[in-house]
């Protein structure tokens, strides 16, 4: 997509933070563009995390993490209802296996209360195992946070993006930013799509937000990527646990956890390992073993045969350990969201709303009223979750619901086409996968991928060798047999 020459605000990064800012900013009479270097939103850390909405007892009091986590977590239930994003108020437990860990639970409880977390309490003995009967019987106690929940992190990102785009925000994909210079009336951005002027720049570039910040500010920042590896457990085991279960935290992080997901699968992980390359989201033999063994401490009955796949993501860790939100002293109109690692997802709605408010004030922007606002059109309920009556109705209204493309996750052709047609719709096989779950099941796309390629070709007017897994360079096919380029 060609970018315009000038915008009131340009947001760098279409992850959950950038998309959240875009969504709240779209409520004002401003021209806004989001520049995303990848082919789809949420391809960085936003697409590769645990998907937890933390209660807020973990961050140190009086930090931005504590403030935005607690505020953001409270926004989730109503926000997800409004956006049609699946949120589960499943609760979380920090599990102690010995006296030393038990003592740490008391500290976390106190910290949580200070941060304003509600309903926190310690559970032990019969009460603990009544809540989670499948937890290892070596557990002695747990800090139970009923207000924690889980969400699909990329689903939330897509909803923010679609809502923003539906209200005039332009999303420009495959557009990396290489330079930003200060100008009289704001900034001039050099990006893959050309030169763009903006009064305001939002730095939501995740792992690369230090690079972006350092283009304009003398207050140099450095992000040190920290990688987490995960196993995904077959949804046949859905219901084994209700809450997310954490090991008692150490200096390294929240530790290996087991969590159900909103999709019925469970996650085992993540590990925490410093890596040199921000783009290195490889899984490793040692990391996967650590994730599995760590999970087995909470869930002794977990078997290798229950595992369906793995993934890894990087955390944007910054020295000092707290979010950096707002304008650096030497770059007015440049709004940072740097060092947004955990609890970044939980904080995203609060950060989005906050920064949009700050930007609107900075620009003296007028809020949109009445018909200027386009109400958000929620995606249709997934076929997989429909009752048989709803399914019959859906097929009668749209025959595309009568063709099941992804057998493992029961995803229909109608949903796949819709995922491509959404305002910031899927353009790649992974884009379709993240929006619909097609390819995320037991067979990992073995059955459905050729059909998804076919539908992408049909919707986008492309030929099969132009379809990518997740952007340029990841083409799946090299050409027709007999005609492929050498």
């Amino acid at each position, binding site marked *: 997509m060609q970018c315009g020459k000038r915008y009131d605000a340009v947001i760098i990064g279409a992850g959950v933070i950038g998309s959240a800012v875009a969504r709240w900013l779209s409520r004002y009479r401003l021209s806004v563009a989001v520049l995303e270097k990848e082919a789809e939103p949420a391809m960085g850390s936003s697409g590769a995390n645990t998907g937890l909405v933390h209660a807020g007892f973990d961050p140190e009091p009086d930090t931005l993490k504590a403030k935005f986590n607690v505020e953001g977590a409270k926004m989730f239930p109503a926000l997800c209802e409004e956006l049609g994003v699946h949120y589960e108020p499943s609760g979380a437990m920090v599990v102690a296996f010995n006296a030393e860990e038990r003592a740490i639970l008391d500290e976390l409880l106190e910290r949580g209360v200070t941060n304003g977390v509600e309903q926190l309490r310690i559970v032990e003995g019969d009460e603990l195992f009544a809540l989670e009967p499948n937890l290892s019987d070596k557990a002695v106690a747990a800090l139970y946070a009923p207000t924690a929940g889980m969400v699909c992190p990329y689903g939330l990102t897509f909803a923010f993006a679609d809502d923003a785009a539906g209200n005039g925000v332009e999303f420009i994909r495959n557009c990396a930013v290489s330079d930003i210079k200060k100008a009289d009336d704001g900034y001039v951005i050099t990006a893959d799509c050309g030169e763009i002027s903006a009064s305001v720049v939002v730095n939501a570039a995740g792992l690369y937000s230090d690079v972006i910040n350092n283009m304009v500010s003398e207050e140099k920042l450095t992000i040190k990527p920290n990688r987490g590896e995960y196993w995904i457990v077959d949804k046949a085991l859905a219901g084994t646990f209700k809450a997310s279960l954490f090991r008692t935290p150490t200096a390294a992080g929240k530790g290996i956890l087991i969590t159900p997901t909103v999709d019925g699968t469970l996650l085992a992980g993540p590990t925490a390992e410093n890596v040199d390359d921000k783009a290195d989201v490889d899984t490793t033999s040692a990391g996967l073993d650590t994730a599995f063994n760590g999970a087995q401490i909470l869930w002794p009955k977990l078997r290798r045969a229950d595992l*369906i796949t793995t993934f890894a993501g990087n955390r944007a860790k910054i020295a000092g350990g707290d979010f950096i939100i707002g304008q650096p002293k030497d770059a007015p109109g440049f709004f940072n969201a740097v060092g947004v690692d955990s609890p970044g997802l939980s904080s995203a709605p609060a950060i989005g709303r906050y920064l949009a408010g700050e930007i609107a004030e900075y620009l003296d922007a007028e809020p949109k009223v009445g018909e200027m606002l386009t109400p958000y059109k929620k995606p249709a309920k997934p076929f997989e979750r429909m009752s048989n009556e709803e399914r019959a109705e859906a097929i009668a209204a749209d025959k595309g619901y009568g063709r099941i493309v992804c057998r493992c996750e029961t995803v229909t052709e109608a949903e796949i086409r819709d995922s491509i047609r959404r305002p910031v719709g899927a353009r790649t096989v992974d884009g379709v996968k993240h929006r619909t779950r097609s390819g995320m099941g037991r067979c990992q796309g073995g059955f459905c991928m050729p059909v998804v390629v076919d539908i992408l070709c049909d919707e986008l007017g492309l030929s099969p060798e132009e379809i990518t897994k997740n952007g340029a360079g990841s083409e799946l096919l090299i050409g027709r047999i007999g005609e492929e380029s050498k």
Partner: protein
Amino acid sequence: MITKQLCIIGGGPAGLAAAQAAYDAGCRDILVLERDCRAGGILNQCIHNGFGLHRFGEELTGPEYAQRYVDFVNERNIEIQLNTMVLDITDDKIITAVSQVHGLQQIQAGAIILAMGCRERPRGAIGIPGSRPAGIYTAGTAQRFVNLEGQMPGKRVVILGSGDIGLIMARRMTFQGAKVLACVELMPYSSGLTRNIVQCLDDYDIPLMLSHTVIDIIGKKRLEAVVVAEVGEDRKPIPGTEQTIECDTLLLSVGLLPENELSRAAKVSIDPATSGAFVDQDLATTVDGIFACGNVLHVHDLVDNVSEESARAGRTAAAYLAGEHKSGESITVTAGKGVRGIVPQRLNSAAMDADVSVMFRPDRVYKKAAVVVTSNGEEISRSRKPVLTPGEMVTIKLTPDKLAKISGGVEFSIEEA
């Protein structure tokens, strides 16, 4: 809700053979439910020949073999509903299915034959570490692209797993101008048919790297290389043996898993040794009126055996529907020394007046072996086998005179000379 006497889930070779046999045994109200746009199942993409040597005495391609059965079914006017996905089966034999033409259907079946086949084990399930670029396919998905879509997945190929699908794709990709650099096999022996090793690897000078596996995957957007290492007896990589093979395509042939999600929904008991249903010699599962055959029951090597087994299931279903199926006490079939994945897992004592075929795989390669069948300590049969290999299913036929000697239980084991 519509009612059907016999519903067959799957219109591949198993479902079609079962349909033909059920019809010929007298059943006239049959519905085959098939998710694809044509019947024939996985055979439709197996365009190589070698099918039907036993069944028809001819060397047919997969689609040709499938067409024989499609013709049998069409000659009998047996109803096949295509483009139909079964979402659920209850233990009361109520089937929920979805299609564009018929919408959401609920069907009360008198009997059900499970013939859903199997799926391939993907990379994620075995957790091969490394990056997750484009260019990694299971061999069957690659076969679908090449043979049905007419698209080439890549041009420099490494194959992990020497199962038949991997071997066939080694040759197929070579025919289509790709360079197949190696077939990497974890075990010290291949899991495919010997004839495929010869005709797909040896004939094309494709190295078979036994006791090796892929330990890392390299490539940001598209596969660039795999790292292969030798493994020891514990199947773990031996440090220092790593080699990097530059390639753009990795095909995985690392195991087939019978698709029993629907079977589990119907409360059919599944044997962990086969990942398929527990059945008796007539393919009856543990749920009254539900039968299983073909790859969903256990992974076969030869479609000829699938046809024979599925015909038996069809005949049994027809007899069941006619009220003629007798159920007696169960006789446990035990997998003894060296025997894996034995089917059937029990014998119906009321049906011991017909031949019984017992199939299993050996747990390793055996030379100059014998398959010994015993009951109550008494040897009932002994078959000499010059070579036994896990890649080739063993079939032992027990005739009624032998079956008459069974009491209490029967055990199959392998003795090496």
